[in-house]
């Protein structure tokens, strides 16, 4: 995950924009807000910190990775200490952890759920099936990776990834949210 540093250099025309892009505002408005200074930037960072520390994922467990997700949420490796509470309805969820194989029959449903989630939203592809089709990549009924259906932010490899791996992936997602709030585009 590389972080593009945007130093606001005004003379470098081809570089990143010299103002922080705030979400929901147009380019001119963002420029105005950046000129307003420290307060707005800090507000974005506060929002980013708040969002990252209370990620509420949608329960989207398809296959075996779902059991590891449940195991991560259970007693031994707790997810509640990160502020992560699993929500059942997409309308109340921040992010979706795609745990398990996506089949061609399931893909339209995943798309619909993603569209039902309100902004801002993130997607975590857990396990090799959700990342790229996994061991079933040559099968006739498997979508080769969830990113063929919806845009994915964090990929967690493993089959299934152990709970520490899932926690590491979620921590990376939290970092990404905080960094993006500072205005840096994170790939």
């Amino acid at each position, binding site marked *: 995950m590389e972080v593009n540093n945007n130093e606001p250099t005004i003379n470098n025309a081809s570089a990143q924009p010299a103002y922080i892009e705030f979400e929901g505002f147009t380019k001119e408005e963002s420029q105005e807000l950046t000129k307003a200074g420290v307060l707005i930037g800090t507000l974005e960072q506060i929002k980013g910190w708040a969002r990252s520390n209370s990620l509420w994922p949608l*329960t989207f467990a*398809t296959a075996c990775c779902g059991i*590891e997700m449940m195991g991560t949420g*259970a007693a031994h490796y707790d997810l509640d200490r990160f502020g992560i509470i699993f929500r059942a309805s997409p309308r109340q969820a921040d992010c979706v952890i795609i745990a398990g*194989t996506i089949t061609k029959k399931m893909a339209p449903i995943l798309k619909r759920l993603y569209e039902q989630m309100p902004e801002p939203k993130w997607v975590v592809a857990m396990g090799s099936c959700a990342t790229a089709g996994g*061991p079933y990549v040559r099968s006739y009924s498997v979508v080769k990776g969830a990113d063929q259906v919806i845009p994915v932010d964090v990929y967690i490899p493993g089959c299934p990834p152990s709970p520490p791996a899932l926690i590491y992936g979620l921590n990376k997602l939290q970092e990404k949210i905080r960094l993006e709030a500072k205005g840096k585009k994170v790939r």
Partner: protein
Amino acid sequence: MGEIRTEELLMNIGPQHPSTHGVLRVIVKVDGEIIREAEPVVGYLHRGTEKLAEDLQYTQIIPYTDRLDYLASMANNHALVTAVEKAMDLEIPERAEHLRVIVVELQRLVSHLVFLGTYLLDLGAMSPFLYAFANRERVVDLFNRLCGARLTYNYMRVGGVKWDTPDGWLEDARAFVPHMRSELKMLHDLVSGNEIFLNRVKGIGKYDTATALGLGLSGINLRCTGLEWDLRKNKPYSIYDRFDFNVITGKNGDCYDRYICHMDEIVESLKIVEQALEAIPEGPVMGKVPKILRVPAGEYYHAIEGVRGELGVYIVSEGKDKPYRLKFRRPSFINLQVLPQLLVGQSMSNLIAILGAVDIVLGEVDA
């Protein structure tokens, strides 16, 4: 104020739902809260394992079997390797047999714990889920030390098992048995007398033996009606005939009986593990098998008592190292057929209780 117009509503309990069984969709026609008709729709996790298996050697298929019933991977491995070994008439070393029985019975225990946790989570109780998974962690930790994975073990091979136990594993397994017994007592104290729980599951989802036999149900779903049919005793395979354990049956065939059968089977599994741990000999863990496994031409069907029922493997072979056709007789797939007739006339909350008690795993329903 005239008559309130009521009509039946076609509702979809979609493939994504908080009930933890996986991507099962149930289309119900409800009249108020009462279900008139229900139809399960499966296939949202159909990954084409059987088609993929036609292109893989037998040892390569073993990881795919793990992912069929992912809560009971050891049992799935066992099904495939015993089928191939029976077809090829292979001898398996004693230590490997004992290790297999130990891991399969521990796996059965783990799966029943997950059933307990998730069933009660569906019914609304959070605490048993946490206790069940905490105990599961201990067993999964043992498995992790043994074969390196937490959920999909890929442990058994045709002719034996892949790895021998590391130092201290057998002692830790022996120490686990009394710990689990006391934990089980605690779980019973927590759940089995709870009035809300009993009200929600007693008398719900009843069926009799004749229905069960006609539908081809197996495992706990068949035994809860009172018929004693356990493939470990009736069609013994591996070394199960050496161990002394009871076959748990229910009386009424309702959800409560299925719950009690699950809990009592944990006790029986602990007995078998204890006996196997005592009897395990030293020796090799892998028998003499040819490097490339070729099953002689013909067709074979072999079934074992998997965790959810009769898990069978049907192999059609042309004498090559890859099967011509490999079919898994998956218990959850067949067991799910009982759902429509059980749901008629029930309320929506009973739907969750009944669905949970059938104990399905979607990986197995869809293959």
